[in-house]
């Protein structure tokens, strides 16, 4: 069964881009448009890895991460931060990896493979 990557980003273009990138590489995907709905999607979809944007309209990435880390069942899901903001490594200190937009797709895929496979 294909590993599932969840994409959390308010930019639909980024969601489409990452969905295509992961799907083409053999992963299943699911997505959420901001942190507020993301936890429900996590519970429903049970992803193996999450890519997380920081700045989103309702609930920002760090807030979602905090909620996620309070859920014993889901706290160990690796989170990869992908954001246009600087210093994101301090925003989600326990993230598995950090990428700045624009990011290198091959580098991202290699990181996902390393984390998930």
């Amino acid at each position: 069964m294909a590993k599932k990557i969840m994409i959390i980003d308010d930019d639909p273009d980024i969601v489409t881009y990452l969905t295509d990138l992961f799907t083409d590489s053999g992963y299943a995907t699911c997505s959420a448009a901001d942190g507020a709905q993301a936890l429900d999607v996590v519970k429903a979809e049970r992803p193996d890895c999450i890519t997380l944007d920081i700045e989103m309209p309702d609930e920002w990435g760090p807030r979602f991460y905090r909620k996620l880390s309070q859920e014993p069942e889901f706290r160990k899901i690796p989170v990869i931060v992908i954001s246009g903001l600087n210093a994101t490594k301090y925003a989600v200190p326990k993230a598995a990896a950090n990428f700045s937009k624009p990011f290198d797709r091959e580098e991202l895929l290699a990181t996902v493979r390393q984390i998930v496979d």
Partner: protein
Amino acid sequence: MFKNILFATSASPACDDAARVAFDMARRYGARLRVFHVLGAPTRAFSQLVVDMRTGEEVSLDDNYLDLVREELKTTYAKQLAECADCTIDTVVGFTHREILRAAREMDADCIVMGASDDSEGPRTYHKGVTGSTLQRVAKAARCPVLTVARPSASYWGGVSNIVFGTDFSRASDSAFRFALKAARELGAELNIFHALDISSLASSVALSQDEIEEKVIQARDRIRAKYVANLEGFTNYEVEVWEGVPYVEIVKFAREKQADLIVMAHNTRELDPERARIGSTVEQVILRANCPVLSVNRPDKI
């Protein structure tokens, strides 16, 4: 909670992170935001020659120059201004801290938002560990709380759901506690009441035994219960924690551990002469090092 916010900016990159917080607060809480820039000080009274705050150059103050500065501010914050419903931009001439305080009084500000930098430039910030003189002067004299954002990572706002109130049990901390409680109640946030037991100053030349330290931790916990928990007025979403160590280090660590959105502290100082007093060294270090905005409260006026 936040209805009138004064965002004091130099429009330099040092204020970018504070801008993110100020605009997000205004949008999220439906507040009126005043973007306020002091462009320079007159070389002498009523002079049209002004020393530009950022460049240090003397410039002639005319309509063209004022328009130029306003336009620069609009360009700097174009994206945020487009999303802000109730926002004004003001530029004035004068001494920065005085004008900021005057503007805050005029608009009856609930909160002043500022960036933090030190008196020097570049990487010396953390070597010196001293905040800039404008912040010092504003924080000491402001009637309303002053929210400071010093690091990019301190600017991830997105609302407040977890507040750390750091106390040293001083009188000034009482005002900070009232503000933290009010904020937690109105914003639906968790309130973490935290005290850092300063073991470096408890016994200057004698190392305390662990039993003595733990006894003092228990006493501090009891003190928090008596002083703060007893005054929570039915508020139940709180936690009490006491750690021993160097206070600013422990507060920053605790806030990081709790993934706090906001640290509330009093800026207490041991210096009695108001002219010489800086804001307390602990809050100063917390401001420079924290991963979230730090709100310092000095007076009960706006609480």
